[in-house]
């Protein structure tokens, strides 16, 4: 425990980096996955294609992707962008299916009613279809968020800071406390992030909790 208190400054820095590296990809992934998910919910061929591709993407090992990316998009090996892009890809892979399914689950009568009273397609998506998809989208976001928080650590293998650094250091020094601290910190962060997402999900969907 004394080690933890002696290194609060370091832990703080690592937390900031870890949060940044895991949250930003979720936000970017969500922004990109919404139009893709919409396309998948709307056109059958698009659905087959997008869901297959995103399924395949998720099977690429994260370390391989982080290492290969610099060669593909000519970034520096140690650039955090590599981690951000990798995790964004995973987020997209996870969310496209959730969003496509959530949008397909919006009752057709409600969409028809929206059209019949004069919504144009884009406003209808923003005003009716997407809000109704939120509960399922939030569930997908929670999975992506927790998965990202755990995956950021992999970045430490190529020298990118985050809780992963505690694992690489701990291994090199054969220092168990540091490894345990890293595990606990990752768990706590995942727990907090999950709670925050749940809370946001509840706040933006008050209609899902009304009784008769």
């Amino acid at each position, binding site marked *: 425990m004394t080690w933890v208190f002696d290194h609060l400054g370091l832990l703080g820095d690592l937390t900031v980096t870890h949060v940044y590296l895991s949250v930003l990809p979720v936000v970017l992934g969500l922004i990109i996955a919404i139009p893709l998910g919409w396309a998948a919910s709307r056109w059958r061929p698009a659905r087959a294609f997008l869901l297959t591709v995103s399924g395949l993407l998720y099977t690429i090992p994260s370390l391989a992707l982080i290492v290969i990316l610099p060669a593909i998009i000519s970034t520096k090996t140690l650039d955090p962008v590599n981690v951000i892009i990798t995790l964004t890809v995973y987020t997209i892979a996870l969310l496209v299916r959730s969003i496509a399914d959530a949008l397909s689950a919006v009752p057709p009568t409600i969409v*028809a009613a929206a059209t019949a009273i004069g*919504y144009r397609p884009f406003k209808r998506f923003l005003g009716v279809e997407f809000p*109704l998809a939120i509960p399922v989208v939030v569930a997908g976001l929670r999975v992506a968020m927790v998965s990202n928080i755990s995956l950021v650590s992999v970045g430490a293998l190529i020298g990118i800071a985050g809780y992963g650094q505690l694992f690489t250091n701990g291994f090199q020094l054969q220092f168990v406390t540091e490894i345990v601290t890293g595990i606990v910190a990752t768990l706590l962060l995942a727990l907090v992030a999950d709670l925050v997402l749940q809370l946001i999900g509840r706040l933006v969907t008050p*209609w899902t909790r009304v009784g008769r």
Partner: protein
Amino acid sequence: MVERSAVVSGRGYCRPHYRDDRKDLGVIEFQAVTKRFDDGTVAVDELDLTVDPGRITVFVGPSGCGKTTSLRMINRMIDLTSGSILVDGKDVRQSDPPLLRRGIGYVIQQAGLFPHRTVLDNIATVPVLAGWGRAKARKRAEELLETVGLPAAMGRRYPAQLSGGQQQRVGVARALAVDPPVLLMDEPFSAVDPVVREGLQDELLRLQGELGKTIVFVTHDIDEAIKLGDKVAVFRTGGILAQYDTPAELLARPADDFVTNFVGRDRGYRALGFLTAGGLSLGELAPVKVGATVAEARQALRDGWAVVVDERNHPCGWLSADRLSSVDESATVDADLLLAGGSLYDTEHGSLRSALDAALSSPSALGVAVDGQGVLAGSITADEVLRALAAARTAGEVPQ
């Protein structure tokens, strides 16, 4: 169309009493409208029909008859294949569909409310889309909540917290939000139970009396069509218009076997609902006031029966000699002694059908007639109703 004969009128059901200052907006004309789907099925075949402005026109028919397709072509939810539909002289194809739809109220089956918006926000949807601004739109939504008979507190609830009937009222309020001259109603009451449905139908007729909209109403229920329609268009399978007429004409003179079958077996009896009962002569009834003594009541019995009225002379029920014989002379007439009466026959608005029903449903075989205010007016017998009907037939006022 056949002219209405003198005695046939729409008063039998509680038809809307239309205001005279109604603007004649919302004429809808179908001109040789055909809809052929991609698979080749013809849903609507050369439909020619003019919907009267400010009236309720019902499209009715079996499934696959093109009634819903015809309705949805008006606001271009479905685009027609050939022919044209004019709303107030303007071809609907010249309008941008979303703008056209905002100007035409639409009520869908099961209301189609947005589950994520409160009742008020649901009603305010179209005004907001039309760019009214939130405050004005919400104010309008509050007014409409009252118009459709829902308490203001309900405005903050979500649709899931409302009953089916309440949801349907909100659906109507939403369709009325920007005060469109035309209202399309696509089987709106089919998903609610019969009792609620009847209430919603009466409510629609009441509202229509105030608003005088051009309403096109789709149903597969002929009774609903006859109750609600000023005019009824009967469609047959394949999208062919079988008959377009007033409900009374439809019952009295069905155009062919298809319409006869569709209208149903007891159409003769239902047609009585469209015959005013002006010529009926009422028998006298000696009423007993609530609170009179049993001795007084015995004096008043005729053929063993007396009708009891309250202090405003509204009938409350019947007394029978049987019932009175077991009670002490000095007792007073109260609710416990009464036999429930049958239906009442309203001499101002009632039809022959309601007069006959009053006679048939009364325990004393004498129907109770009341005036427009509900005050006891006299008695009516089934024989008298049939006599009046026979007289009307002889006079040629009722089609054979």
